[in-house]
């Protein structure tokens, strides 16, 4: 039986292994590095990503369908946790949109336990937590141009004064309730664009690919490993070259003096 002699540590072998293991990551590092060096000329900071897959990965694409209430020619919508006046972002809220009405002086928006007041042009006036007085708002309506809210458990109806400072208990009569409306495809597309705001730049994606952050903390470690592999490749490459060079010199020396 022939026992093969166990190989000693071979720099060349590990140079090859490290090179093969890191090949894809090193290609990504190199290409993204070159791209980042030319951000301005390649206009990476002005190019916005349109891919649903990438936007979803970054959590920038809204989930579900928008809920919209119409106020004259304007619309108040909620998509995800963002609230919009037409396509202008008002604020964000985890609460559900219950209605929007035009009162004497303000546009009033009702959430589960919060009211928002806007000016007619959509400027933000005030955020009013309804606190314990009117939690569980179910509907928002209007009566005599004053906002009315319906609460649950128990079911009560409250009407505000013209400044929306005080609320009085009223009976459920002659209240015109705010009704949800649908959005056509163009409106929905515009709202989607508004949701993403200025959007995700290609520079951000390339930067995250380069650093590995696109895969979270794991990606960062992965790119660290690729960088260490690159370091190893340069050192082991030098070592292999040095060994071969020395051997060739020895060989030439032997051929010259021992023939």
């Amino acid at each position, binding site marked *: 039986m022939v026992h093969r002699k166990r190989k000693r540590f071979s720099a060349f072998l590990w140079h090859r292994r490290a090179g093969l293991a890191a090949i894809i990551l090193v290609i990504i590092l190199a290409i993204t590095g070159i791209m980042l060096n030319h951000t301005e000329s390649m206009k990476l900071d002005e190019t916005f990503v349109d891919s649903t897959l990438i936007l979803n990965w970054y959590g920038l694409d809204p989930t579900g369908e928008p809920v919209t209430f119409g106020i004259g020619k304007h619309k108040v919508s909620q998509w995800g946790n963002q609230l919009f006046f037409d396509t202008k972002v008002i604020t964000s809220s985890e609460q559900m949109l219950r209605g929007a009405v035009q009162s004497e002086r303000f546009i009033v928006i009702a959430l589960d336990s919060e009211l928002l007041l806007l000016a007619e042009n959509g400027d*933000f006036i005030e*955020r009013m*937590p309804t606190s314990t007085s009117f939690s569980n708002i179910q509907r928002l309506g209007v009566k005599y141009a004053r906002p009315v809210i319906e609460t649950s458990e128990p079911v009560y109806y409250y009407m505000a004064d013209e400044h929306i400072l005080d609320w009085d208990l009223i009976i459920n009569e002659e209240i015109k309730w705010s009704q949800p409306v649908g959005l056509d495809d163009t409106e929905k597309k515009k709202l989607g664009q508004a949701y993403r705001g200025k959007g995700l730049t290609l520079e951000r994606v390339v930067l995250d690919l380069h650093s590995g952050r696109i895969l979270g903390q794991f990606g960062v470690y992965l790119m660290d490993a690729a960088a260490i592999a690159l370091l190893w490749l340069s050192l082991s490459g030098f070592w292999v070259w040095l060994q071969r060079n020395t051997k060739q010199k020895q060989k030439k020396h032997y051929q010259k003096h021992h023939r």
Partner: protein
Amino acid sequence: MRHIRKILLVPLLLSCNALYAGGIYQQPDEFIKQVFDKSPVSVKVIWPDKKLQQEITNILGHEYKGLRIRYWISGTKTAWVLDEIGKEKPITTGIVINNDKIELVKVLAFRESRGWEIKHDFFTKQFENAGLDKNIQLDRDIDNISGATLSVRAVTKLARLALLLHQQVSKDGSS
């Protein structure tokens, strides 16, 4: 092994405590009821003009989100429920001013995972009887809490803002 388990358990318990220390401590209307008790109180609003808006921006370091600010008044006492972001989420604070001096600061809601220590009396009591100097700064130093610097800054800004707004409504009786 038991010792290792104990060592692991202590930071776990401490972190759980930190996670659950935030939240809503008191509803704004309960705060107002408690502050004014049975005194007649009326709710008013101030619409800051451009000059006041600029002063507010100087205090907060950003524009105030909203065109009007609600307050409650009874005699020379006013109460304000204001929001300011500590790190990422708003801290709701109730502030009572009487004769241009702070009477009470109370953190009503803290929504972030760190910095909730500002809710304690040892911190909020520092604001009692504080007023504004000529530079619209508090006339006293407020001690920081390590690990809660941003929350301390947010509440200090709100204290200055409430004093400024109180001065304004006392001056012109806006409503």
